[in-house]
Each structure stands twice: as structure tokens, then as C-alpha cells.
């Protein structure tokens, strides 16, 4: 418990649907230890993405407690959460979410710049090289393939050396071969920098690469 990086206590999430409130997460309690890799699986619609969004502070819970690195999210407003992410978290999405008007290099440099890093661009270039995109730095997202875009997204998440990496089905939009190389990269990055990793996936063989697997069913942990 002392080295727990992520700690969730009876976390609930109820969203306002068209036909009234929809309970999505129904009391989740969970601890993730420092350096651990956690695989989060479950059928589509079971609430995996929602849980990850809560861990990243991109969504606020409607009940329970979330604390990350000893910081209680309930006490942080939106901007404080943003600053917290800037210093401690990298997030990778299924559909990449690169800013279309920025080049690969600029996309990677942005979180570093937001953190006030004077060497943002040098570090971003190194990070792109690490994911094998040295000759794509000046390309816009629309000029990159899906796999390349996801590699940029990985570089962007990893560049500020976050304590925690959150990845939501990072290979969901990619063919299996490309997906595999992305997974290799992801675990590689984690191994090199020793970050805590939470990986959402519904592919059992990918989850198997994690230290621990938990399964979500209809908003509750199995």
C-alpha cells in the first residue's frame, strides 16, 4: 500500500444519458504499485475506457476516491489536474489524437513545452528517433500512416518521462502486425524508463504481457 502509485476506492461513474442516468462504473477498488504493468481487459462497453479516463483525470468520478501518487484527485480542479498530468502522466489513445495542424515533431514537443522545458525540441527529436521516425519529423499527421501516427503518439506520451503511462487499446485501430510492433515499443519504453503502465486491451495475448490482469464486466471488477 505504501508504494501504491494509483489507488481507487469504491469509485463510481454515472453519466447522464438520453434516457436518464446511466451507471457505468459501479464501485471499483484497485491499487497499482510503482513499476507495475497492469492489463485491464473486458468486453466492449464494460467501462474500460471510462476507468482509464478517471485515472487520467480526464473525467471526474461521481463517487469514491481516486488518488494518484498520493494526490487526491477530488481536491484538484481541472487546471490543477492538467498541471498534474503534465508532470506525471502520459496517455495514449486508440485513435492517436494528434493535433492535425502540427508536425510530428511539434506534436511531441508540445507537452514538454507546456512543462516549460527549454530543450523541448531536442528531446522531442530524440524521442521520435527512439520510435524509429527520424525521417518523419516534419510530416503532418495526415501524411503519416496509422502505425506511424500511433508511434508519434507514443513518443509524445513518453517524452516528458512520466511516472505513469495510460494506454487505451493503442493497437485497436491497427492491423495485427503493426499493432505488435507498437506493443513492443510501448513495453520497451516502459522498461527503459521504469514507468507504471496501465494498458487497456481486449486481446488476451496482449494482456498476457502484463504483470497483472484484471477484468471488467459491466462496470464491476470480476
Amino acid at each position: 500500500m505504501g508504494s501504491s502509485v494509483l489507488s481507487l476506492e469504491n469509485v463510481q461513474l454515472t453519466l447522464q444519458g438520453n434516457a436518464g442516468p446511466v451507471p457505468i462504473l459501479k464501485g471499483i477498488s484497485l491499487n497499482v504499485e510503482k513499476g507495475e504493468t497492469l492489463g485491464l481487459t473486458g468486453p466492449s462497453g464494460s467501462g474500460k475506457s471510462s476507468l482509464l479516463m478517471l485515472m487520467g483525470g480526464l473525467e471526474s468520478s461521481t463517487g469514491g476516491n481516486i488518488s494518484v501518487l498520493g494526490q487526491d484527485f477530488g481536491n484538484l480542479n481541472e487546471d490543477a489536474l492538467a498541471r498534474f498530468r503534465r508532470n506525471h502522466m502520459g496517455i495514449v489513445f486508440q485513435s492517436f489524437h494528434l493535433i492535425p495542424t502540427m508536425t510530428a515533431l511539434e506534436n511531441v514537443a508540445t507537452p514538454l513545452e507546456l512543462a516549460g522545458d527549454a530543450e523541448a525540441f531536442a528531446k522531442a527529436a530524440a524521442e521520435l528517433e527512439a520510435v524509429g521516425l527520424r525521417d518523419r519529423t516534419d510530416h503532418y499527421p495526415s501524411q503519416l500512416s496509422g502505425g506511424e501516427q500511433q508511434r508519434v503518439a507514443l513518443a509524445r506520451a513518453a517524452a516528458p518521462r512520466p511516472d505513469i503511462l495510460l494506454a487505451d487499446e493503442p493497437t485497436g485501430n491497427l492491423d495485427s502486425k503493426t499493432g505488435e510492433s507498437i506493443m513492443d515499443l510501448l513495453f520497451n519504453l516502459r522498461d527503459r524508463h521504469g514507468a507504471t503502465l496501465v494498458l487497456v486491451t481486449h486481446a488476451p495475448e496482449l494482456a498476457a504481457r502484463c504483470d497483472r490482469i484484471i477484468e471488467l464486466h459491466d462496470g464491476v471488477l470480476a
Partner: protein
Amino acid sequence: MNLRQAAIIARRELRGGLAGFRIFLLCLLLGVAAIAGIGSVRSAIDAGLSSEAASLLGGDVELNFTHRTATEEERDWIEANSTASSEVITFRSMLKARADSDEADLGISQVKAVDTIYPLYGVVELAPAMPMAEAFETRNGLPGLIAHTALIDRLGVGVGDIVRLGTQDFELRAAITGEPDGTLTDIGLGPRTMVLTESLTESGLLGAGSLFESKYRMELPAGANLPALKKEAESLFGDHGMRWKDNRNGAPGISTFVDRMSAFLVLVGLAGMAVGGVGVSAAVRAYLARKTDTIAMLKSLGATRATVFATYLMQIGVLALLGVGLGLLVGGGIPALAIPLMADLLPVPVETGFYIAPLLEAAIYGLLTALIFSIWPLARAVDISPAGLFREVSGHANRWPRWPYLLLILFLASALVTLAALFSGVPTLTLWATFGVVTALIALALAAMFTKALARRASRSRSMQGRPALRLALGSIGGPSFEPASVVLSLGLGLTVLASIGQIDSNMQSTITQELPERAPAFFVLDIQKDQMDPFREAMLADEGTEDVESAPMLRGIISKINGMPAQEVVGDHWVVRGDRGITYASTLPANSSLVEGEWWPEDYNGPPIMSFSADEAAEIGLGIGDEITVNILGRDMTAKIANLRELEFSTMRINFVMVWSENALTGAPHTFLSTVYAAPEAEGRLLRVMATEFPNITAIPVRDAISQVSATLDSLGSAIRWGAGTTLLTGFVVLIGAAAAGAEARVFEAAVLKTLGATRRRILYSFALRSLILGATAGLVALAAGSIAAWAVMYFVMETGFELHWGSAIAIVAGGALANLLAGLGFAWRPLATKPAQILRNRT
């Protein structure tokens, strides 16, 4: 092409609703409503003027003489040809309050001396109400006088008080609240006073050489042949200075003014329509962008390019008809509803109604604009290849439409301009205005392209590193989206119109008020009799505030013949031969003029009559030394040859005459003197009182008053035009909001991603604000440049004066543009900032 097929598909797609077309509809609505509204008001005024033409003119026919009344022969003709007639004499004079006091107030007035038959048509409204006979009858030895409310207020008198005109005292009987034959054009210098002509016999005001006009209004028998009567009168009296007006055009001055004004406003409205066109284009482009898959699918199913074009053209056509229809409803309806409520406040008669012609005109402009601006994006959309469906690349190739479409656009645009030139009645102005709008649009399009390219480069430059907010702003301006261009175009064009009008307005105002000659005169004094000249000069110079008194003899006459031929036939409709001109005589070359050609005559010249003519006007109407000019002065023809040409300096506001005759040629004719008095402002009141008490017959025109009259007139003209420009700007703002709304999706996404990467809301807002400010300022700067060039062109070529950039309005334009866009942008920043990133990033692909 299969039109039926196209119609079926079009109908299906239209079922999807109008959500994406709100801006499209609003742009057309505003553009059409503005033009239809201007046209409807104009038609209402025209109809009002023509239905009240006889009453406005004061009769079915009016014969007009300058500085004389009708001769016996003329009176006989008038009597013989009318069922009733009335004589009216007008002149300017000073009305003095409390006749017995030296300290009394004075007001310049346009006096109308009438007979007992006046008014032939309509009624003079008086407060308190009473018959005209009662208003003018002599009581206790004092004849009655009525005056306009404004004059009564100014003099601080009331009904029953004694007032004085010339040397004659009157009793003020009532205030004039409505005059059937008094209109806009009469407001000029001084409000109205009315008396009976016979009560002026002792006033000393209608002596020989004084500046009055006489008007004979005739009521014609039913079925009278106007054109034949006109011909007869002109052949009988045309050579003796008679001018003819009839009820076919009772108030030519006003209707010309109204026509010019509305033509000008319609041009401003067309500029607004072009702004709306930018919005139309952006909306069509956005709609078709969502239809890319549908179009590719239609084509892969075998639809030809023409069928696809027809499919979407029909949809746009239906929507354009809807937008135009709404615009006509608003533009035609508001005046129809509002005019009856305001009729009493308007200075001209109006007749309410739905007028078809202006609505038709506005509808044509609206539909053509919608087509012209839709075809470009439409033509590019139909070029989408079905293969695109199966490829990942979203190649946004900025290709030009194929040439047949370009030709079609060119044809429609030419049709629009040609129609506008025909409808407006001022083709040259229309063409110049079109040239201005097209040039401004091209300049703005280039500026938008340049800004985008510059922003793209700048966003990638090293100096942007470490400034992610600015880099994001520049990057999104430089990106592939059409939105920045549509902001620069619409806001820019709206601001260009506003900037040019602002600059013209401030230049006109400063020309009149600030750039007066250093030594502006205090008074122009008319009607000084020859024997009054010396006492007048002495009396003026006796005041310590008087600096100088300049005077010249003055006669007034109409140039009737040139080299024996009727003048208008020789030189056409030039102002020099149109009305009556002031003429003077001199034995030496007048000050502030210089000889250009020929010799001045010796001081004791005593040969045949000769004259000096102004060089500029001589050149304009093609006259030279040796030409013979006949002038009709008080019904008498006098002829002289041009002996020399001289340059004048009009700008000094001294007395200047187009014609200076040799003294021997005119000394016989009755004449008065015109004087210019230079005095300190604080002396003006004293001088005016001296003039009124010692020289009651003369008329002094305070220059300061005249100037403020002119600048007040300009002011109201300016504000009418600013209102017109306001609708242009409003349309621009609508397009702006449309552009901001179109960009909102992108902003929401950027905000969600940036928040995820650790950006605070302040930082994101800062980036969005920068983006809006950069675009707004670009539009403002280009507008300022384009507007100033247009304003310079108007001042230089039309007004023939100098131009000076007025920084106040210039800075307001640029700042206003940036601010307007900032507001539009920030209005749409709220949602991105308030939305939780999870909502956006969850399942977006």
C-alpha cells in the same frame, strides 16, 4: 445528365434538414433585405412625390422669374391658360424680434410673400389653427405674419408679439407647422416666414436689384395639353428668363436627391451582398465536404459529373430561393409596416405599399450572388473521384474548377454587374464600385493566402519553440481549413466598406470645418444699394472687431445665348448656363485672380461691351476669346465678347465671379452690391445688429451658420451611409460567426488534446484568442489599406480635393475588426474549454 434523377436525389438529401445552412440563409436574407428595404423606401418616396406633385409644386404649372415679376403680357398669358393662378415671391431677409428694441434677436429667414389665393393646392397648417385671411389681415395698423416654429423659437417671441422685416413691422399671428409646397430643398438657409406681398410695399425689401424670385402657379383646366403649353410658353417667354416647371416632375431636386442617395446605398448594399457571398461560399463548401462520400458513391454508381452538379445545384437553388424569399419579406415588410408609423416624421411625402420593382431587383441580386458564390465549391466537389472512397488519403488538392464552370461564374458575375449598372442609373459609379469590391476581394484573398503561408512558416520557425499556445494559433491559421480565409474575406470586405466611408466622411468634414481659409469671412452681405455702400463700409469698420470689408457690384442673370445660339444647345447641361449667375463689372483685374490669356482692358475703356471669363469654366464648355455671350438680366438681353480669360482661386472664399464685364457695359443696369465682411467672431453679433437697424433692406448671411448647415447636412448624409455600411458589417459578422462555428469542432478537439497534455484552460484560451486576433487584425489592416485607397480615389477624382488619412477612424477599424473576430472566436471558445476531455477523446476516430 438525368434531371429527374438529380431532382429525386436532391429531394432526399434536403430532407436532412437546414442545420448546416443557417449561415447560408442568414447571409442571403440580410443582403436581400437591405437592398429590398432601400428600394422599397425609395419607391414609397417616389410614389409620394408624384402623387403630391401638384401640391409640392404649388400648382399644375409654375413659371419662375429671377429678380423680376411677370410682365403684363406674361400675366395675360397665365390668366388666359389657367382656371386659377397665384403669385408667390421669395427672397431671403432677416426677421427681427421685438421691433422696438436695439438688443433684439435676429434670424435669417426665407421669406415667402404670397397673394390671397395662395395656396392653390393643399393647406398651410398653422398653430393656433386659423384661416390664411385671418393670419394676414391688418389689425391695429399692423399686417399679420406667420413663421416657422424653428424661427419663432430662435427669436424667443410668441404669438401676438411685434416683429420686423426690413422697415415694416408685423404682428406674429401663428406658427407654420406644415407647408404644402415647402420641402427639403427649401431648408437651405433659414426657416420660413410668410406675409402678404402687399404688406411689403413699405418695407424697402423688394426694390430694384434685390435678389428675389417670383413664381406663378397655375391651376389648369381638365384635359389641358401640358407639353403644348410648355412649348408655347417657352417660345414666347423663354428668352426673357422664364423657367418652366410642371407636375410631371414637381420636386425634381428631391427626387434626384432621393434617387442618387438610394443608388449609392444600393451599391453599399451590393458590397454587403458580396460579403454574404463569402458566407454562402463557405457554407456550400462545408456542406459539400460532408457529402464527399455521397458524391463519390453516386459517381461509382454511374452518376455523371453533370448529374451530380445538378443534384447539388438544385438543393442550393431551393435554399437560395428560401433565403431570398425571407429577405424580401423582411426588406419589403419592414418599410411597409414602419413607414405609416413614421410618415409624419419624414420630411418628404411617402406612400406605403409593397413595391414589386425593388423587390424584384433585390431578388435578382440575391439569386445571382448565391449562384456565383456556390458554383466554385460545387464545381470542385463534382471532380471528386470515386476512387477516393477506397483510398486513405484525404488529398485536399486546392485545384481550380474546370473552365466551363469558370466561364459560367464570369458570365453570371457580368450579368450581375450589368444589371446593377442599369438599375442604379449611375453606371459609371456602379462600375467603379464593382471594380473596388472585386479589387478588395482579390487583395483580401491574397492577404488570406499570404497570412496562411506566413503563419505556417512562422509556426515552424525556431523562435516559436517553447511557445506552444502561439504555435498552435499560427499552425491552425496555416492549416488546410478554409475558415481563416473566410474570416479574412468577410470581415475584411465589411471593414473595407466601413473604412472607406469613414475616411471619406472625416475628410469631407475636415475640408469644410478645419481647412477653411485662414481668414474666413464672417458675413456675405447681399442687396446693398449703391448709395448705401459708403455708409455701410463706414458702419462696419467702426467696430473694432472688423478686419476688412470687400465689396463688388453684383447683378444676376442667366446666360441665354452663346454666339447668337441658345446657350444650352451650344454647351449642353453645364452648371454655368443652368441657373442664374452673379455678374460683376470692374475696371482693373480683381485681386486673387490672374490673367491666363488675352489682355485686361484699360481703366477708361469705353468701346463695345467686353468681358473676362473664368479660364476653367471656359475650357469646360469650349469658349475662347472672341466668343459672344448674351446674358438676360431682369428680362433684358445684354451681349458682350470675351476679351480675356483668367484663373480664379475659389478656395479663398472671396467674392469671385465667372464673368467680369467692362464697367461701361453694365453701369446702366440696376444693380446692388455684394460685400464680404471679415471680423472677429465676438464682433459678429454687434455687426449683425448694426446691419439690421441701419440697413434693414440688406441680407447678411453668417458664414459660420452656413458652414455648420453644410456640415450638418453632410453629417446626416454620412449617417445614412453609415447605416448602409452597418448592414454590410452585420453580414460580415454573421459570416464571421459562421466561420467560428465551422471551426468549433476543431477547437473542441484541440482543447481536449491540449488538456490531456497538461495545458491549463487559460493557456488554451490564450491560444484561441491569439488566433482570432491575428485573423481579425489581418482583415482590419487590409481593409484599412483598401478602404483608404478607395477613399483617396473618391476625394481625388470625384471631390477634386486632397486626402489625408484620419488615424482615429483608421485605428478604430483595425481594432474593431480584431475585436469583432475576438468576440466571435471567444463566443465559440466556451464550449471547448468547458467540455471534459473524456467526452471528446473517448471514441473519436
